[in-house]
């Protein structure tokens, strides 16, 4: 514990000012990637992110070969140029050939990446002493970024985010319904190119932090996680950006806390954890809430089934219903039945007195509602699907728990408020 605290103290101390700045810069970078990547995700271009990030490599190598110095400005220009070229090639080949999109993406990615590796190898074998560290583009080098890199990247990332805030309406339009956007006279091709440029710029600077291999994760993972948390595009952008920022900062911190730990991979690991948590615990769409929903459905089904049986026993003239009567009638094991009865008592549908079960007025109303839905469904099936009357019961046993008051109203209207079901049993209204 003390050790970690020590790390945190050192981390934020004045001597570590640079590392503080690196973590913030990497946070800003990942924020920008998360925000831009939200549109990559919504436009289903996840693989394009991969293509761009691998395609910046030859640009970086050529920039170094031409200038002979490691200057982030030159690298950025080279990266952006070859990134844009790769997008243009993908679009052009798609329009002119009969190749499938996934083939085009895979080919473009490998060709650019291959060429990049060839150039890098060539540079490494050259005499130029300045070349050392150039291979960090493969896996990133956030922790060893220079002050110039940090300032440059932060400024560009911020400009990037501001542009997206300004063009939010247009970018949403083309992501949802490109044809309609064209139809109302929006400059769709301008918006698409603009978004592509912002994406390439983001990738070009992001690559310097996490490397070409992991960059696509930085674009797509935050959005994939954020989608599970909200149905509002502004919030989604904010969540995706925040996941990015937090992962950027935490990733740098973790990689600093041990010796020789890589930054980029840690950022991606932290990011994936965020996304995983969102996918599991996101409200509505998350796995946890869906599981909870299924559990509560089961509770409802059990409650309603037992309640229905108590009602039927009472109808049959059983004035005193004991738990043993129910155990005989039910397929539930006694312990489970007892817990169901406890819930029914809590809902004030029944009272339990010394081993006897007494149906309350509320319980009677609830039980009749279940039976009503059951019989309405039976009538519906026999009327609209010509099912024999001995074929409708099993289906209705399941559907009686599903019918909402809204659907029930609809059924009553559709069937013209019937009095009896196909088995001539009365429908309790």
């Amino acid at each position, binding site marked *: 514990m003390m050790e970690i605290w020590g790390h945190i103290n050192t981390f934020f101390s004045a001597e570590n000012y640079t590392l503080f700045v690196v973590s913030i810069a990497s946070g800003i970078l990942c924020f920008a990637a998360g925000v831009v990547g939200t549109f990559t995700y*919504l436009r*289903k271009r996840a693989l394009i992110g991969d293509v761009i990030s691998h395609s910046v490599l030859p640009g970086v190598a050529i920039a170094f070969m031409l200038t002979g110095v490691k200057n982030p400005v030159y690298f950025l220009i080279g990266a952006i140029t070859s990134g844009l070229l790769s997008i243009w090639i993908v679009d052009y080949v798609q329009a002119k050939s009969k190749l499938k999109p996934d083939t085009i993406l895979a080919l473009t990615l490998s060709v650019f990446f291959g060429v990049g590796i060839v150039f890098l190898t060539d540079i490494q074998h050259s005499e130029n002493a300045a070349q050392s560290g150039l291979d960090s583009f493969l896996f990133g080098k956030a922790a060893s970024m220079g002050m110039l890199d940090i300032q440059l990247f932060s400024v560009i990332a911020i400009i990037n985010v501001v542009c997206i805030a*300004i*063009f939010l*309406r*247009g970018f*949403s*339009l083309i*992501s*949802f*319904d490109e*044809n*309609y956007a*064209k*139809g*109302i*006279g*929006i400059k769709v091709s301008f918006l698409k190119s603009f978004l592509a440029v912002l994406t390439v710029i983001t990738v070009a600077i992001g690559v310097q932090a996490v490397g070409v291999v992991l960059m696509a994760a930085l674009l797509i993972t935050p959005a994939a996680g954020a*989608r599970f948390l*909200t*149905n*509002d*595009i502004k919030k*989604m952008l904010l969540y995706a950006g925040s996941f990015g920022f937090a992962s950027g900062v935490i990733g740098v911190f973790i990689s600093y806390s041990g010796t020789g730990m890589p930054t980029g991979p840690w950022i991606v690991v932290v990011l994936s954890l965020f996304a995983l948590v969102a996918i599991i615990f996101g409200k509505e769409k998350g796995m946890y809430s869906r599981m909870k929903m299924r559990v509560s459905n089961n509770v409802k089904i059990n409650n309603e089934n037992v309640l229905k049986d108590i009602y039927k026993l009472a109808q049959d003239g059983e004035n005193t219903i004991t738990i043993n009567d129910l155990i005989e009638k039910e397929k539930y094991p006694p312990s489970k039945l007892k817990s169901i009865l406890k819930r029914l008592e809590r809902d004030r549908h029944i009272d339990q007195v010394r081993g006897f079960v007494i149906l309350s007025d509320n319980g009677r109303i609830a039980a009749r509602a279940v039976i009503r839905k059951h019989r309405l469904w039976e009538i519906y099936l026999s009327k609209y699907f010509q099912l024999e009357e001995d074929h409708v019961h099993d289906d209705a046993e399941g559907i009686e728990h599903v019918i909402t008051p809204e659907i029930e109203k609809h059924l009553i209207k559709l069937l013209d408020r019937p009095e009896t079901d196909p088995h001539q049993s009365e429908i309790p209204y």
Partner: protein
Amino acid sequence: MSNTIIEAHNLTVLYGRKPALWNIDFELPDKQVIGIMGPNGSGKSTLLKAIMGVVEPTSGFTKVYDDELNNVRDKVSYVPQRQDIDWDFPANVWDIVAMGRYQKRGLFKKLTTEDNEIVTDSLEKVNMLGYAKRQISQLSGGQQQRVFLARAIAQQGDLFLMDEPFAGVDIATEEMIISLLKTMKDAGKTLVIVHHDLHTAESYFDHLVLLNTRLIASGPTSEVFTDKILTDTYGGRLTTISKISQELENKEFPIRHK
């Protein structure tokens, strides 16, 4: 007497080498309900997209209100095909209908109180006001179609181009759309509708355009909706035209010498 509202001249649209529309010529009258019909892949949607400027014609042109579309775009409302869209997009019903106001407000101006009233009003017209805050991924097919109609109404055009508004919707929605079309026609709007159900064509439309890559017929429903023309549209010619199209595509023949 009605005036011409849309005209097409020598309109040809190629996808690659394959013609989707081939030398189409017609004039459509205003203030009517007009159906565009033809078999699958006969270029119905492409025709609508060409009129809306969504696809570029390879040759020929279309005019709306005897003018270029760009000059009269604010009079034209568009309902694209519902099935072309991924409805799992983070937006609610209100957000989508509000898009109908973006034509007027552009990409940057905030929507005004007036815009909000128009959006509310449009939602009311399609009986979807109660669903304003509903996520679009939770809507049924019929409800999705109503949302798209509301969005087009919010554009406040005089000419409505609708791509298959009746495809995959429930009866209640179909009836609602029909009564809406009547109201709109009575208010002097022109409605151009891509449709595929022959049974309802006669009762829905005043004027019909029958397509099978080439134009088969265009005229008042009473004159055009004949056995001969329907056979020409849906029957024999289909195979001939599609065989030629296939040749053009596979062997990369040009559609005409330039």
